[in-house]
């Protein structure tokens, strides 16, 4: 048995780091950078440890379990009423690893932030703490608590450090995007809030402990009534169509590291919430509503891909491609069979790493060129071969090329979907083809062809950016070439999910 303190530390370290940064004077920017880099490295190491030390032969249950009572025997709360209960299963373990990778990359990429980088990192670490906390929580209250912690810093992160963009037909200000994102996400959590009230009240156990609530058998009609609250509430964060509109706008305006974390990890919280709160808590409700989710997810996949083919802005293209890929996650969940849900979790990891790499690359060119219009670039490979290599690798992973992470994930999703909804799988594969279209279109526009002299001043990525990109690329290859560590952990847990056959 492993010590749960490791898991508590994933939340504690970033929170303490944020508090410590408050005390650093504004102008000591280098102290902030080095401190954050060290914290990020420590968290990365910790995440690696948690992932690899998770024992696959123990039936897929919760490991690293720990419980600290927080509020109990007071008011309507009974024993263990609200407790800091932490634990990871085979689904959460890869997510913890993902958070470690992406936050490490994000902290390194943010090295060049000059404007109040102290404030930036305070909010950054609060965000990271929220994400870790959500993946680790086994208490309904704290799940929601950390879920909201992860959304809380978003407004300021985007509105202060983001960028406004003017397009031929419209302008997207950072304040607008930040507000849209925050209000949409918090509005969605209204539904989760109501769902939690209902679940607590219905169970009547006087505790928010998830394992106690999992053991309670909720009335079938109750499950059918409440499941949509969790599905849509969490689905908004996962980019569920038609509530995805905050996502591309948010990415376009957000600073690089925030886009990385956002698409890389935050959207996964939504999908993770559907598993933790939806499928595990209300399996009968899930079984009843999953065909509906399948329809929406298919729209997600196809609509996102079509929209991406029409974009000229790098970030909008990646934003819509994220909508499409998150659609694959939802599609996998909607199958409710082992291989499909496996695929969904694999896709969560794969998309997280790949899209973080995408946004890191876009950031490295945007910081120099101050534009993201792909039609303005041409022949970048002559000036920035490393950039094109990493960007290209992420693109290939996104297309689902074998030996890269996207293939493993999408393959599982499609196999699962073919078993249950062949029409959806067919549409999904069609969308995968569209992915190839928009990725290759971008290559031909920006990367290859005659070099545009306007960009003769562009420099190759910095060593720090290459390091970050290599880290992310390594995990794309790792999962693509040797998926067993992931599949073992995930499938053992998925097999035991209620309602999954």
């Amino acid at each position, binding site marked *: 048995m492993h010590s749960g303190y490791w898991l508590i530390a994933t939340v504690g370290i970033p929170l303490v780091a944020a508090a410590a940064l408050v005390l650093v004077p504004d102008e000591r920017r280098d102290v902030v950078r080095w401190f954050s880099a060290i914290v990020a490295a420590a968290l990365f190491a910790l995440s690696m440890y948690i992932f690899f030390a998770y024992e696959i032969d123990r039936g897929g249950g919760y490991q690293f379990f720990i419980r600290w009572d927080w509020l109990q025997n007071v008011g309507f709360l009974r024993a263990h009423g609200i407790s800091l209960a932490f634990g990871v299963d085979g689904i959460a373990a890869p997510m913890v690893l993902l958070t470690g990778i992406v936050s490490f990359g994000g902290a390194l990429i943010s090295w060049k932030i000059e404007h109040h980088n102290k404030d930036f990192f305070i909010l950054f670490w609060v965000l990271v703490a929220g994400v870790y906390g959500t993946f680790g929580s086994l208490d309904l209250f704290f799940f929601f608590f950390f879920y909201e*912690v992860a959304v809380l810093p978003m407004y300021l992160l985007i509105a202060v450090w983001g960028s406004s963009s003017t397009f031929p037909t419209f302008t997207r200000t950072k304040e607008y995007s930040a507000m849209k994102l925050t209000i949409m996400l918090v509005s969605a959590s209204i539904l989760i809030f109501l769902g939690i009230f209902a679940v607590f009240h219905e169970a009547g156990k006087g505790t928010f402990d998830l394992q106690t609530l999992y053991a309670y058998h909720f009335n079938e009609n109750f499950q059918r009534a409440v499941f949509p609250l969790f599905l849509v509430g969490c689905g908004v964060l996962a980019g569920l169509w038609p509530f995805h509109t905050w996502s591309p706008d948010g990415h376009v305006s957000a600073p690089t590291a925030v886009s990385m974390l956002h698409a890389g990890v935050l959207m996964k919280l939504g999908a993770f919430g559907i598993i933790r709160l939806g499928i595990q808590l209300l399996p009968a409700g899930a079984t009843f509503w999953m065909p509906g989710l399948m329809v929406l997810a298919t729209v997600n996949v196809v609509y996102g891909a079509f929209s991406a083919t029409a974009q000229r802005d790098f970030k909008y293209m990646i934003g819509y491609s994220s909508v499409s890929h998150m659609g694959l996650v939802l599609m996998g969940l909607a199958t409710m069979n082992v291989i499909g849900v496996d695929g969904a979790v694999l896709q969560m990891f794969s998309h997280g790493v790949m899209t973080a790499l995408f946004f890191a690359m876009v950031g490295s060119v945007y910081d120099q060129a101050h534009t993201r219009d792909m039609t303005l670039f041409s022949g970048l490979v002559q000036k920035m071969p490393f950039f094109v290599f990493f960007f290209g690798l992420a693109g290939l992973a996104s297309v689902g090329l074998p030996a890269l992470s996207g293939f493993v994930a999408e393959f599982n999703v499609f196999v699962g979907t073919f078993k249950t909804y062949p029409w959806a799988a067919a549409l999904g594969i069609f969308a995968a083809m569209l992915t190839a279209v928009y990725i290759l279109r971008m290559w031909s526009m920006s990367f290859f062809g005659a070099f545009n002299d306007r960009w003769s001043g562009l420099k190759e990525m910095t060593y720090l950016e290459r390091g970050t990109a290599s880290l992310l690329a390594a995990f794309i290859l790792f999962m693509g070439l040797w998926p067993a560590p992931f599949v073992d952990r995930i499938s053992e847990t998925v097999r035991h999910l209620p309602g999954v056959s």
Partner: protein
Amino acid sequence: MNLNFDYTLFIPEFMLAGLAAIVVALDLFAPQVRKSWLSYVAAAGLAVTAVVSLSWVNKDSTFARIYAVDNYTTYFRVLFMGTAAVICLASARLVEDKLRHPGEYYGLIILSTVGAIGMAAARELMTAYLSLELLSFSLYILVSFAKFDSRSNEAGLKYLLLGAFSSAMFLYGLSLIYGVTGSTYYSGISAALSAGTHGFSFALLMALVLILAGLGFKVAAVPFHMWTPDAYEGAPIAITAYLSTTSKAAGFALLLRLFGGAFQVVHNDWSWIIAGLAAASMLLGNLVALQQHNIKRLMAYSSIGQIGYLLMGVAGLSHNTASALVLHLTGYMVTNLALFVVIIAWYNLTGKEEITDFRGMRERAPLLAGALAGALFSLAGLPLFAGFVTKFILFQAATEQGYYWLAGIGVVTSVISLYYYLMVMKEAFVTAPAEGETHRLRVPYVMQGLTVALMLGVFYVGLYPQQLFSAIDNATRFLFV
């Protein structure tokens, strides 16, 4: 009948009355003393009295059946004295710069605290009424304390006229209650009502409506909120803070004691009225707040919304909801005080109180900007800060009583409130300071200390409320005896 005439129960109130006299006398007989010292004396006296009042913890006793000194009273004693101390400290510079007669200013704040404590302690209708009037009269004067500011005079007059009207209604309600039950003791009323063989009593309903209208005015529940924005805007800014904290909390302390002790047996007759007031307050307060440009008016409407959340707890009144309500009330008061300390400090330094005047606060006063963000997040109900936990508990408690729909309105309006709080934050963090106003401002140490202390309080409630919640749970037990 043997009545307990133990005057030692009033020691904290006697001390406060003495303190008020000392502060006034100090101002009068020692005019050479720097005026800010008066605020320190007042705050220190309040702090000492708060500590003294702790010696009544777990000593349940009642003065002549009219004035209970139990844990509930002790809790509110400490809460009100702490609030008054913060207000006194935060006022020092403001009073020196803008107001005259500092002795009376601090004296009235202390006296109003006595009234507020009486409202929490009263177990008899006339005592409750007298305490209420002591609080109100002090506030009428304080609101109009900026003698040469016509806005302050206007605010004072409006507050006085509407306040007198609502007191009359409240009093009429009390007299009807006496007519129906033949008693002015809460316990007597409760006994008469539960023994009552009558079915529906129009006089009782009338009395409850009048009482709720009178108290609704004091706590500014919709539709009795009309005075709030004007009084908040016109009053000296520290008094605005006081209005939004002690004045409302005392109203709720009275409401809980009265309805828990006297009217709980006819719960069905009044819960629907309060549920209606709660829903209206949440919706109107938060929606109208969207339109405000002045920070004091914004806070007025935001506090109306907060009153709606609190009333939700009264609607489904039980021991659990009362605990949740007092917890939320405490969190709200600490947060609001933190926010107002920031606003007062900023006002002292810049002389401005429009929301757009907060621009560049991050550059000019980072500590204030940080506390502003924290306090606003807390009011909006986001985690790490007090607001999330207290709202969560309060809404869940309302749900346990079957008020799903009120909890639903509560959550929706919380999101609405987040929008206007974010607009304030946007000015402070995103908008650059105006030309020529980029230099750092020096915030006085007292204000820095207060800001940090109150923010620590906000974090305490938000991150580890077990002891606080247990203490409250223990205090509200005494409401239903």
